[in-house]
């Protein structure tokens, strides 16, 4: 996972021994830290996955979980774990990865931590389409997901087209996105005021993001899409690193800025739209994963993988808390929203003290 970013500071051609050695030592420290953080996140994620599968209304031992996962029929446990908990866990995992990666691509490319897909109207496109589809056309299931994905990509395309003026500038894209997002929010509000109470409740739950309808039929398409889109994004992340240096430098490095940006946007948007279609726009996950990963890694190398891990952790922990820890049951989006916001405020306060930026 070396990146273009590291190259300017590499010791090549340093005339003296000492600075080169210093740089190399610093680089080693950063690499070690990165590896340690990634390992810790992965272990933590594994632990959360195991706990999610074991604990619930009835708690099973990890051994029983393993037996069920290996295909053995265990009375009771096979249904609870095999039919309910596993697809829910997988959906949470994949959706978290999608939001985390999609969010960090937007934030990095637009060089603005505010510019995550949930703020600049990408998720709102999927949500608005879904709410209208629910309340007006009574859609559900695969048709609903399809509509949400298509609408998310279409809205992103519209935002991109509207902000095109001899190339796309990040600031303009953000502003257009916010405007489009506000329009879509008003569409959502309109659909909600026209709907019956039951529908509105469903729509609201869907709007905040929830894993309550995460069964095996949801997991299949989601896993397929993630399996295609995540490697694509990882391949494209080379361009992302180049774009971070500015359009001119990127062009000098052999990357065509507009084309690279468009392909990155497309893949990231598709990832976010697929995740939104599966579980709704789980609040704050796309927004927070990048900054948290950045804090942990301390600013070297690509943030895609760490952000994906953080995103998955956020979704799984949030869902677990919403189901079992908070008295009445809340969808995961409400939990991540309520828990995530204070964290962001704290982050902001810290950032302000140190005088840097996110």
């Amino acid at each position, binding site marked *: 996972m070396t990146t273009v970013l590291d190259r300017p500071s590499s010791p090549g051609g340093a005339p003296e021994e000492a600075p080169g050695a210093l740089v190399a030592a610093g680089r080693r420290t950063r690499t070690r830290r990165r590896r340690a953080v990634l390992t810790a996140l992965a272990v933590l994620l594994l632990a959360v996955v195991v706990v999610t599968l074991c604990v619930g209304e009835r708690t099973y031992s990890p051994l029983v979980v393993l037996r069920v996962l290996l295909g053995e029929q265990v009375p009771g446990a096979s249904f609870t774990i095999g039919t309910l908990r596993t697809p829910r866990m997988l959906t949470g995992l994949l959706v978290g990865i999608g939001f985390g990666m999609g969010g960090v691509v937007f934030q990095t490319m637009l*060089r*603005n*931590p*505010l510019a995550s897909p949930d*703020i600049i109207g990408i998720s709102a496109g999927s949500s608005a389409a879904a709410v209208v589809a629910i309340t007006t056309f009574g859609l559900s299931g695969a048709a609903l997901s399809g509509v949400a994905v298509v609408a998310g990509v279409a809205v992103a395309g519209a935002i991109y087209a*509207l*902000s095109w*003026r001899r190339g796309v*500038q990040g*600031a*303009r894209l953000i*502003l*257009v996105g*916010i*405007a*489009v997002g*506000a*329009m879509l*929010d*008003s*569409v959502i*509000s*309109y659909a*909600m*005021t026209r709907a019956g*109470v039951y529908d*509105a*409740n469903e729509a*609201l*739950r869907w*709007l*905040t993001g929830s894993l309550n309808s995460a069964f095996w039929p949801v997991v299949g398409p989601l896993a397929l899409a993630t399996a295609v889109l995540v490697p694509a994004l990882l391949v494209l992340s080379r361009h992302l690193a180049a774009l971070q240096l500015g359009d001119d430098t990127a062009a000098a490095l052999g990357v065509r800025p507009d084309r690279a940006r468009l392909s990155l946007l497309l893949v990231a948007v598709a990832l976010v739209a697929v995740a939104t279609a599966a579980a709704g726009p789980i*609040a*704050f996950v796309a*927004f927070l994963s990048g900054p948290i990963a950045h804090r942990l890694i301390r600013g070297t190398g690509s943030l895609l993988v760490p952000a994906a891990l953080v995103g998955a952790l956020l979704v799984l922990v949030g869902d677990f808390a919403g189901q079992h820890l908070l008295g*009445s049951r*809340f*969808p995961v*989006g*409400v939990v*991540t*929203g*309520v828990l*995530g*916001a*204070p964290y*962001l*405020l704290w982050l*902001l*306060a810290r*950032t*302000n*003290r140190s*005088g840097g*930026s*996110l």
Partner: protein
Amino acid sequence: MTLAPSAATPTRPAPGRVGSLHRRRVTGLVLCVLAVAVAVVCSLAFGSRVVGWSDVVAGVLHPDTDDIAQAAVQSRVPRTVLGLLVGAALGLAGAVMQGLTRNPLADPGLLGVSSGASLFVVLGIAWFGMSQLTQYIWVAFLGAALASLLVYAIGSMGREGATPLKLALAGAATSAALVSMVSMVLLTRTDVLDTFRFWQVGSLGRASFAEIGQVVPFLVVGAVLAVGCARGMDAIALGDEVATGLGQRLGLVRAVGATSTVLLCGAAVAIAGPIGFVGLVMPHLARRYTGPSHRWLLPYSAALGAALLLVADVVGRVVARPQEIEVGIVTALLGAPVFIAIIRRQKVRDL
């Protein structure tokens, strides 16, 4: 990463052109007032029921009438007055917020004021059993004030004080937090959801003169404070250091301006619900005629805000006869494209 100030291009005209600029500003203001007058007439004349012009005149002049057309016109009088007040308040508040924060995106919605009011109203309904609009007003006002204070406090922490980016970030974070908390309450209380989702969308149709009377004092004080810090905001547009050098007390200007926006937005949100884009779009439109001077920008923004809100309300009443589309929805649908057009015209450096 930086949101460059939009008002920070003080193109001071050459001495010979000052007269023409002044003339243009006066002409523009007259046009704004005319637009408001036209909007008022439209708001009285058009609605779910089609009425003749003679009925409009009669309905306004003779308060007690049996004629149903004239009664319909009369029922449009309070909402027209409310539209004028709320529109002007939102336009002013948007201009002040944008001036203070040097942030072209500043808007009651973005800086968390509306969602603060929303959360407090939801809590009032859910926990304290409130059901009267007169009760919501005070709770919403409190919520808006607290949310603004919170956002401003967080945004101004640290060495550089309240920079646009930090304010926007603080506003977005606070807003998201408050909306999540609103959802948390709503999901456990279906009855509250039913009451709230109608309040959640801004509308002018529910007001009576008694309720309007309750918010007028806040609006007046807010407007006076806004005008009072116009000169200070002109200086702020040049940057904090220059403003301090020009003898402005930045802390005082910001405090007065923030208080005025709290009063204006809080009262507007309390009586009409959250209405977006009036505060965001109108100052941008006004600035094209007035230049960066806030003594001109503020009255322009107020007049244009009132006109936009009334027109949006009329559109909402006429398009979906015999039902109505709430004005908050219409302003977003009308305002967002205008906003996008403005963005497209501006140079990226000025965004």
